[in-house]
Every structure is written in C-alpha cells, then in structure tokens.
C-alpha cells in the first residue's frame, strides 16, 4: 500500500515535471513585438500614452470636425458642386441643411465615423492608462504620476460628457470590459441621464485635487492641458445642462424606456437642479477669480493713439485673438486654426483688379445674426425707442441716403452708402461682423487714414466673384481671425490663437442664466448676477441691463420678470459668444430647435449696384425643417443590431 502510494506520487511528479517542461518550451514570446506592457515600461512611453488619451478631444472650433461650428443658424455657406471643390464646403453645413441620417450619421462620435472622434475608444484608452500607470517604475516622479492620473480621469469625464450632450443617456464605461467578455456582457445599456451626470461630476471631483492650478501650467509647453479651473468650469457646464429644459423633466422623453423598463430621462422637473447649477457656476467663478482670471480689457498697443472707437474695437477683437489671455479658461490646441482663419477672413482690398484666391470668406454670418446684435444703446433693435421713432427698424433694409457723419466714419466708409441696419449698432457688431462698406480696422492697417473697408457688391473685392470662394450672405466674420493678421494685395499672414472652449464671459453668462432660473431677477444672488452681466456689457461699451432697458427700450420692465430676463440673458449669451460654437448646443439645451427653421437669409450677392445688392434673399433653395428628433444625434442603425439593449434616440 505504502509502496504503491509512493509510486503514484513519483509518477505524478514526473508528469508534472514533464508538463512544466513542455510549457516552458512552448512559451516563446517574441522580443520585437511591442505590447501594452511595453508602453508603460518607462516615464517617456507613459507620457506618450497620456498624450494618446488627450488625442481624442473633439476638435472644438474646427470648421470641419466641430458640428457646433456652422451646424446651426449662425453662419451659412454655399453648396460645393462637384468639379468646383476649391470652394470648400465644411461638414457642419450638412448638419445645418438637416442632412443627418441614421444609416451613416454625421459627426458620429459614438463609433468614430463620418467626422466623429471615437470617444469610446478614448475612454478605453483612459482606462488602460489608469490601470497601467501605477506599474511605471523607470524615471517616474510621484507628483507627476498623481497629476497624470488626475488628467486621465478628467479626460474620461470629458469624453463621457461630450457623448452625454450629443446622445442623451449613454452607457457608463468606468472600467474596461475584457476582450473575451461574452456577448451578453458586452451588450451594455444606456444609463439614465441623472446617473451619468452624477458619475461624470464625481469623477471630476475626484480628479480636481490632483490637477494643477492654472498658474502651475507652463504656457510655453503645457497650455491646453487640464487644470483645476477647467474641471470646475466643466462641472458648471454639466450642471447647467442637466437643469435645462431639454432634459430636466421634459415630457417629450418620458416614455423613453429601455428593455429593462428603466426610464432614461428624468420623469419630472426638479427645480433644485438650477440651485445646483448656481452653486457649480459660483464655485467655478470663485476659483477663477482666485487664480486671477478676469475679462480681457487690454487695449492693443497698435491702437493706443487711435480714436476710442478703434481702441474698443481692438479690445473686443482681441478677446479671442490675443492668445492665452486672462479671460481664457480652456483653449483648444488639437488642430491648426490657420484653415479656420483662411475661410472666415474677408478680402479687404483689391489687387490690380484681381482677387486674392487664398482668402476665401465662405463661412459667413446670416442676416439673422446680424440683426441680433443690439443697437448702439444696448437693447434689441426692434425694442429701441430711437429705432422706432426714427423708423430705422422699419427701414433697416433700406439704403440710408445720408453718408456717414461724425464718429460714424470710424465704422462705415466715408462718402459710401449702406443700409440703416449697419448704423447705430453696438460695438460688438462692428468688432464681429464684416459688412458692405464697413471699415476694417486692423489686419495690417492700424490708423484711420490707412484702414481698409469691405465692398461686398458683386465683382468688388470682398464680394461674389465666380472662380473664388465667396460669401453667400454678403457678410463675413471679423471675429474668428486675428486682429494682428496682416493682409496686403498679394499676401496674408495668420497669427495663431487657441480656440476658446471656455472663457470667463461664458462662465458669467452660465451663472446669470442659472440664477435667473433658480430665483428670478430679485433673489438673493441677483446683485451678483447683474454685476456679472453688466461687466460683460461694460466691456462691450454698453450701459447696465436695467438702466439700458429702462432708458431705451419699448419694454422698460423686461429685466424685472423672470421671463423677460431669461430672454435678455439668452440674447446676451448669443451675442457675446457668437460664432464660438455655443449656440448650436444652447438652442438644444433651451429646447428651442424651432429657431433653426427661420430660413437663412442674406443680401442678393449677384447685385452689382447697392440698389440691386440690398435685397433680402434666401441663401438656400430648399426649405429647412428641423423637428424634435434633432435635439439629439442619432445612434447609427447598425449599432442597434449589434447591441439590441440600446434604444434609439427620440424620433430617429
């Protein structure tokens, strides 16, 4: 018995020994195949993995890849006919023309197709980074490791947020599912909006202590990376979104229930969400002020000796153009913006009867945006008593017979004629919009005597001219290109600026909106709310809200009611942040998609004389009709076949 037992043991050992031997023999791993572990074998490689996590940031402000640039009613552009591809059509224009589909959605950030960034892949990479960064030994400094971890958490939260805003309820991918997960495991569900919001915010709160202060970011090499202020502002933005009418108890989405019976949208309105938004905006503003963020009010050196009209205009143009200034909270650094500047800058002078073909103002404001800017007295032109009493509003599309006089000559070319609409407007209008006969101060011409002007009549230098890129509305932007770019008859140069993802004025306007919604115009925070609104208006050369309306508006009581003030705040936000990729999302958040159905209009650009040119015309030959389905992006139809636990978005 004993002997047999010993024999068995011996046999067992032999089998095991041979078994291990065989395993060792077969376990040959090649040396030259880099694996994921290899990417974390030292600090240098790990840093590149962190940059990989950053590489998935949607290209905010890019004319091709950001749907919010040109996807709404702020700007328009012509259709590019095949064979004439030198006139570029940017992809967001297809969203603006309502060409979205479920079979191959535009800006598909869910799958990373058709102008979309693969955000789920970005999130998976953040998780891989977070899983592996503790293992990095070589050259790794602990303080840096904690900062990088916080940055990866920030990005993971940001990518979830971008998806949330596009699609509404989304799955939460806090940990990576293994590659061998079963079919039922990989079929994840979309999570209710409130859960996703709380998840993202807790992730951001988790990251904030280890993120650097804005002052610790080395501008020369790190500007654009995540810091505490960006995270606080992001929280404020998310809280504001969650409180807004689109998702806060909107009855349209009450029936959106998945196959588990889980309701994906909040079932009733929760007014407390506005209070949370006030809180989040407030703490973000406090942090920003602690870290010396302030509205940009510098006067360009070029301009110090010039007329005050020019001084103010240069300040307003440099809010965006002066790179990394005190107002900027987060600048986008993931694309070169020279394309943007090339396609938004009007030609401001003539070259021997020819045209500069490398400047193509094709991404241009609609007439609607032009009309949205306030009067020179800081109220809407259809409310201004002066505009009413002088019939300027009724006559706004008519040519003013008198040529510019007095200070008007700093805004409109002397001895030229243009419509009433272009006179008596607020400084931001003249700083943001290039219009026919409008003086173009800057861009190489920094005195009154040398300043150029635009001429949008057909065959004139700024206007329509077959064979080159042209404005389809008869306007162009002054806003999204540098004041210090220069333009001569044959060349132009471009100064880089980071496109603003968040700037302080945006945060102030978020705060104002949240306070008004939470407590109306007379609540405990109203003084602070008006102070922020007025700070923005003062910078723009306008009087305070209440004063302006009382003195100049046909509706003097407007700021005293919640509804009236809501209108004022939204309009202020639209004007201040125009062309910055905000209105696209704001209209959705406000549940105001109908705004997009005002058909885009401009002047009759084929007109060669002022009389022919100044005729209001449709700039698109089909009727645009957005409906409730357009509040959210569609999930690609194929994805619903692969994962039948997903519910398609409303209306798609």
């Amino acid at each position, binding site marked *: 018995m004993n002997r047999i037992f010993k024999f068995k043991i011996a046999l067992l050992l032999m089998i095991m020994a041979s078994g291990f031997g065989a395993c060792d023999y077969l376990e040959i*791993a090649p040396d030259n*195949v880099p694996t994921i572990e290899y990417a974390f074998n030292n600090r240098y490689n790990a840093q590149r993995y962190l940059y990989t996590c950053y590489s998935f940031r949607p290209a905010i402000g890019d004319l091709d890849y950001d749907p919010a640039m040109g996807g709404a009613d702020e700007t328009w552009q012509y259709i590019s006919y095949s064979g004439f591809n030198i006139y570029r059509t940017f992809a967001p224009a297809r969203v603006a023309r309502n060409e979205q589909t479920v079979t191959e959605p535009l800006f598909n950030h869910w799958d990373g197709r058709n102008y979309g960034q693969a955000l789920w892949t970005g999130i998976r*990479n953040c998780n891989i980074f977070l899983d592996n960064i503790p293992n990095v030994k070589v050259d790794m400094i602990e303080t840096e490791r904690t900062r990088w971890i916080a940055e990866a958490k920030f990005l993971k939260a940001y990518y979830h947020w971008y998806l949330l805003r596009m699609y509404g309820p989304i799955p939460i991918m806090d940990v990576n599912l293994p590659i061998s997960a079963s079919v039922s495991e990989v079929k994840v569900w979309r999570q209710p909006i409130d859960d996703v919001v709380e998840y993202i915010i807790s992730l951001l709160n988790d990251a904030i202590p280890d993120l650097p202060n804005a002052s610790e970011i080395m*501008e*020369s090499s790190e500007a654009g990376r995540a810091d505490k202020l960006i995270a606080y502002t992001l929280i404020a933005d998310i809280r504001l979104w969650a409180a807004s009418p689109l998702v806060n108890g909107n009855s349209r989405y009450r029936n959106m229930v998945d196959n588990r019976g889980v309701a994906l949208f909040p079932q009733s309105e929760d007014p407390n969400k506005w209070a949370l938004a006030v809180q989040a905006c407030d703490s973000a503003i406090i942090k920003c002020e602690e870290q010396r963020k302030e509205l940009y009010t510098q006067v360009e050196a070029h301009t110090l000796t010039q007329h005050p009209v020019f001084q103010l205009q240069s300040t307003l143009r440099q809010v965006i153009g002066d790179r990394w200034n005190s107002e900027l909270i987060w600048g986008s650094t993931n694309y070169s913006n020279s394309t943007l500047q090339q396609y938004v800058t009007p030609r401001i002078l003539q070259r021997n009867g020819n045209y500069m073909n490398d400047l193509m103002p094709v991404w241009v404001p609609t007439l609607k945006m032009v009309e949205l800017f306030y009067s020179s007295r800081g109220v809407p032109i259809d409310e201004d008593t002066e505009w009413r009493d002088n019939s300027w509003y009724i006559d706004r599309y008519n040519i003013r017979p008198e040529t510019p006089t007095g200070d008007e000559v700093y805004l409109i070319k002397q001895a030229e004629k243009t419509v009433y609409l272009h006179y008596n407007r607020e400084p931001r209008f003249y700083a943001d919009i290039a219009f026919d006969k409008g003086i173009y101060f800057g861009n190489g011409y920094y005195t009154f005597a040398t300043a150029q002007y635009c001429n949008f009549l057909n065959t004139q230098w700024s206007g329509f001219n077959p064979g080159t890129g042209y404005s389809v509305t008869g306007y162009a932007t002054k806003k999204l290109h540098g004041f210090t770019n220069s333009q001569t008859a044959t060349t132009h140069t471009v100064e880089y600026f980071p496109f603003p993802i968040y700037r302080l004025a945006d945060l102030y306007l978020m705060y104002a909106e949240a306070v008004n919604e939470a407590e109306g115009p007379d609540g405990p925070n109203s003084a602070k709310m008006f102070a922020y609104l007025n700070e923005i208006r003062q910078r723009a050369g306008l009087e305070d809200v209440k004063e302006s309306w009382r003195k100049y508006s046909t509706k003097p009581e407007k700021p005293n009611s919640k509804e009236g003030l809501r209108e004022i705040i939204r309009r202020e936000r639209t004007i201040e942040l125009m062309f910055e990729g905000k209105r696209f999302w704001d209209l959705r958040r406000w549940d105001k998609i109908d705004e997009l159905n005002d058909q885009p209009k401009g002047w009759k650009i084929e007109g060669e004389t002022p009389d022919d040119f100044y005729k209001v015309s449709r700039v698109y030959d089909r009727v645009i009709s957005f409906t409730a389905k357009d509040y959210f992006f569609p999930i690609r139809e194929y994805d619903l076949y692969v994962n039948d636990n997903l519910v398609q978005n409303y209306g798609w």
Partner: protein
Amino acid sequence: MVTNLKLKSTYGLAGNDAVGDNATRFFFLSDVSMTNSSRGAYFGTYANIGYPGISINRYANDLITWETARKTNLSLELGLLNDIDLQAELYYEKRDNILMERASIPTSMGLEGETPKANSGEAEANGVDISLNYKHSFNKDLWLQVMSNYTYAHSKFLVFEEPAYPNAPWKSSVGYSLGQTWGYIAERLFIDEEDIRNSPTQFGTYMAGDIKYRDLNNDGKITEMDMAPIGYPTTPEVVYGFGASAGWKAWDFSFFFQGLARESFWINYTDTSPFINGQRALLQAYADDHWSEDNRNEYALWPRLSPSVVENNNKTSTWFMRDGSFLRLKEVQLGYSLPESLLKKIAMHSLRVYFVGSNVLTFSKFKLWDPEMGGNGFKYPVQRMYQMGLQLNF
C-alpha cells in the same frame, strides 16, 4: 466479373493551428504601434509642443485556440471485368472552434485596431467525388478509353457570430455557404424622376435609367440592411469532366469536355463601364442594349451611360449577377500514324501527323464573353487554338 472491390471509411479529428497569418503568429499577445502621429497631442503657446501617441493594433487574447475538424470519409473502389474502374468518395466534415471576428462587439467597448477574434464559428462541409473510367481493346486494331469525373462540394455555416438582425433575418450567414455573396435585389431601371420620387432613397446621386433596388425591410431607404444572399457561391460547387480516346488501325481520336456548375459571378460594373477616364471603349453589347432617353427600356442590359462611375449602380446586386455554369470542349485531337511497313523504308521509328483543337466549343448561358473570365471581359481572354503537328522519332 468483379475484379476489384474495396470499401473504405475513415474518421478523424484534425486540429488546425494555422489560424492567423504569418504576421500574426503571436496572436495571443497584444500589439501596439509606439509611434502614431494621429494619436499625438500638442500643447503650449503655439500648440506645437507634444508627441505622437500610441495606438493598439491588437489586444492580448490568451483564449485563442486551434480549430478542430471532425472528418468522415466513405469511399468505394469497384473494378468490373478489368475494364471499368469506379472510384467514389463521400465526405463530411464538421469544423468547430473556427476563429472568426467577433461581430457582436458593440463600439461602446471602445476597441481599436483589428476586430478581436474568438473560436466561435462552426461550419460543415460535405461532398462527393466520383471518377469512372472504362478501358478496352476490342481487337488489335480497335481500342477505346472513356474517362469521367464529377465533384460536388457544399459548405455552410452552422454558428456564426453576427449581430441579431430582428428586422432583417436575410442578413444572417447561418445556413449559407462560406462563399455566399450578399447583395441588393435589382428590380428594374428607374423610368423617370417621378418614379425616383416615389421610391425608397438609394445611393449618391442617381437618376432615370439607374438601377432600382428592392427595399426588403420597407424602411423607405436602401441600406446595407437590404442586402440578401444572392446567387450561388463564387467558387463552383460542381466541377466535372468527361472524355474519350479511341484508336482504329493507324488513326487515333480523342476529345475532352470540362464543365462547372452552381457558380455565380458578377459583371464588374466599374471595370467594364464605357468612357471612364475618357478612354475606355464601349462594348458592342452595351451599345446595343442600354437605357437612354430615346430607349427607355427599364430592363436594358446596361443602365444609363455616364462618363463617371455611378455609385448607385456600382453595388453588388442581382442586376449584374450571371450564371457561371459552362461546358467546354477543352480539347479534340485527330491523329494518323504511318504504318510500320512504310516507316522502315524511310528509316524512322515513328511518324504521326495530328490535328489538335483547344477550347473549341463553349456552351454557356452567358454570351458576352467567356464565362471563365469572370466579371471583367476586357481581360486577356481564354484562347481558342488549332494546331497541326508532325511527330517524328528516329
């Protein structure tokens, strides 16, 4: 009478570990690109300080294993009267653990690089292989030899990882051959703009004279979801041949036919479109039978002519699907050998005069070009050849 009779049967398990190609030998390990500029990020004053990033080509997957095939063969050898020789084989193979792409992984997993694979597929194949030969010398002047063969092979997927297609069951690969093609069902050509307006939306810009497809799931648009299995597999399921040789005195004669059946091919729309790049010629058949403003034949061979490839028509569809079956007289030969008595006089060992014709006849439903050339008739064709020859031996 029965000179030879043999029955054989085998059953075996075979493993196949050659599941990846050479480049992916270490299939279970992850593979990353350490320098991928599209995964880089840049920061700083001018947004130009940064690094390229890292991308993943393949994730580690240590559950990958080999494929297993269970093979059953049954064969018969039969010889009759020393003249007839029959060999027949039936086989059946069931293969499981087939390594295939995991089509059911949603993009929310966030994977990049190649689609992960798993040993999830199952397929079966069966077929017959028959050859029958006859050989006989009737007397010293007359002999005859006949040979024939026939193979039939059919395969189908039993398990295939794919999305659930609740509204489009025709998309499923289960039950179909490994060589099955999916495509659109072409109904006819569009008659006019009115017709287009009243039909589901299709691809790109299209107009009257372009192909109209069937909207299988009735969702008002033609999409990938409307692709159904069409035609036979692209490799023939049946291949056969037969022929005979005979000799009578100094004369000899032989012929051989070859054929295949149960195969489909598609006329290559892009490769045979006329006028493309301004230089491609117009096939007479297309010239004779195409849709035009004056000849609005909605069933014309060729849709609307266009100087560029029309995306709408350039889809795999039944419009250009053709039956690839054919039977070909591969070779026919007639020879005459000089009798020995004559040879001796001219001091030769042998002298034979012969005539050979190759690819002499082809029987096929497809007439535009040789069906063996597949979808593009502009390639170098199969040649028909006639040869006269003289064979001398000293």
